[in-house]
């Protein structure tokens, strides 16, 4: 990682127009390969198409021409482009009987960072996509702009702070592990979530358990990868049971020792499955039910206090501060609970 440059505030690169507005034949425009049709809500697309059929394209799209290429690449306006292309192929014509054309602001090819920042806005909507390519691009942004702070990165990229945090976790792994999440074959690919969920377990194992410490991070990580491939980790979410077992044993020395011993076994015994190994240490259902009841009770109590009628300025400020604290905690907890397996990974 290069040294930080705290005194220089990086600027978001601006697009530079190359000339006046042009009306392009849609055949001279290429769709963005990172922006497939699956991205778009078909109902909204149909509505837009209907609108364009009646009124034409009112807001120009933004395109640039990569050096040496005849076609223009889209920076903004993929949906409008697709609608016009489809309308033309369906035989729709404008008032003068000609195929529809696309009004377009042609800009200079964006520099690397501007292109990356645009790419982020696309990846953000692709829930089913692997996070690893986004993480690699984020690293380039961090290196080029000398920014590591999540807030600033979030502002530049449009990624949420938890997403940035998840990307950073992926970047903690050496390249040979990162490559496993970039495998074109989804059946052999290790999902990005694997690394994100495994990281705290690897950190714990290689700092608290001497045998794993001696084994080293790479070897310990490889053990988990082998275990995952052997289907002994049936869901990456199950890594949380290991951390849960550890956290719950905080005040019980003998249980903590047993948990650490089990973690060691889990790493070293390829046949030991996650839930079989750790379910005895967690009483998840009871605690979750308790939390669900507590949430309902909390809302009920607040409603009963009729706080909307609070008029005193100091009291209102104090109450708002307390509510914000609750909100922040709930939001962060909700984000942590969001994780999931790669949708393409077959389940048992």
């Amino acid at each position: 990682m290069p040294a930080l440059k705290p005194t220089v505030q990086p600027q978001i690169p601006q697009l530079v127009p190359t000339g006046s507005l042009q009306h392009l034949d849609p055949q001279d425009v290429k769709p963005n390969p990172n922006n497939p049709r699956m991205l778009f809500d078909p109902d909204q697309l149909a509505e837009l198409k209907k609108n364009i059929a009646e009124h034409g394209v009112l807001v120009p799209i933004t395109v640039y021409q990569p050096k040496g290429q005849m076609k223009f690449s889209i920076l903004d306006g993929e949906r409008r482009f697709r609608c016009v292309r489809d309308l033309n192929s369906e035989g729709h014509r404008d008032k003068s009987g000609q195929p529809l054309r696309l009004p377009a602001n042609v800009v200079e090819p964006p520099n690397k960072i501007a292109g990356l920042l645009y790419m982020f806005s696309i990846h953000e909507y692709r829930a089913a996509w692997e996070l690893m390519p986004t993480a690699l691009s984020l690293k380039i942004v961090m290196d080029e702009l000398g920014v590591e702070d999540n807030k600033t990165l979030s502002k530049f990229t449009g990624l949420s702070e938890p997403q940035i945090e998840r990307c950073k976790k992926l970047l903690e792994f050496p390249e040979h592990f990162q490559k496993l999440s970039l495998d074109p074959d989804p059946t052999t690919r290790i999902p990005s979530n694997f690394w994100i969920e495994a990281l705290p377990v690897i950190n714990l194992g290689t700092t608290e358990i001497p045998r794993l410490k001696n084994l080293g991070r790479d070897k310990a990580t490889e053990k988990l990868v082998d275990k995952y491939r052997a289907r002994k980790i049936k869901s990456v979410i199950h890594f949380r049971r290991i951390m849960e077992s550890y956290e719950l044993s905080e005040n019980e020395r003998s249980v903590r020792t047993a948990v650490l011993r089990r973690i060691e076994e889990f790493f070293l015994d390829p046949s030991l499955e996650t839930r079989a190994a750790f379910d005895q240490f967690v009483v998840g259902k009871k605690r979750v039910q308790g939390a669900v009841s507590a949430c309902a009770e909390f809302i009920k109590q607040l409603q009963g206090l009729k706080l909307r009628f609070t008029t005193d300025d100091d009291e209102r400020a104090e109450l708002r501060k307390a509510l914000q604290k609750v909100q922040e905690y709930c939001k962060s907890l909700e984000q942590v609970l969001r994780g999931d397996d790669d949708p393409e990974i077959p389940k048992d």
Partner: protein
Amino acid sequence: MWSLLSAALAAWRFHDYKPSPVTFGRAKKWIEQFKGEDRKTAGMLIEKVVYLSEKTTRDILVQQNHALMDRLAAVGLPPDKLVYVQVHDAGSSSPVMLNLLRDAAGLDRLGCHFVDAHNSLGLNKVTNEVGEGALIYVDDFVGTGNQFCKERQFAFQSVVGTFSEFLLVPCICEEGIYKIAKEGVEAFAGHVHSKVERPLHDNSHVLDQDAKKRMREISKGISAKLGLGYHQLATMVVLYRNAPNTVPAIFRGSPNQAPFVGLFPRWKDLPLPNQK
């Protein structure tokens, strides 16, 4: 007489076909599998084969690449801004074509970059280093274009910076050129293989209808699924290192070459050599 002339022509034109060299004897045997009038038709089919020998393939790649490099240099993209991308695994056609071009055109010495489309990390690093340039995918043959578009779609998610995209290929079918052009990739090809050039294709009228019908039936008899080749393309292009899977089955022959012997069996159509 027809058989002998056609066999001699086949042996002369296709002698360097790698999976199973076409000799006079083999070509004669192939033709003699047909009966009566069909032998004449088989001879006509031999004439319609677009055969790309190793030399022709290399020459096409070098010429097309030269034209592309000239165009890119004119817009300010020197060789060190060009990233050549192989689109299939090592050992398959794309890396072989890329290596052929790489050596023949001295691309290493010019400072060009090379990467495998499956190596996302490599592609990310190279494109990050180059920043702005051209991605040149290299392959030997494009049929429908579906497979190429799939590979390119995967590769592109790792590309950083602004890159124009080209496909360098000795031969491409008209279906493929349309498909990839729609995606915004421009093909530099030595030969665009039209449907009318393919005697057994639905849209071709090269053969009289009866002869075409009989040949199509023979093909479908050899392979019900791939009788007219993958996606019924019925292509007539054969490359020295392997025939595409889009050629009709009468050229490939039966699996293990029995009962029907092919003129251009693919590697996987040949019986396994005896292991001692």
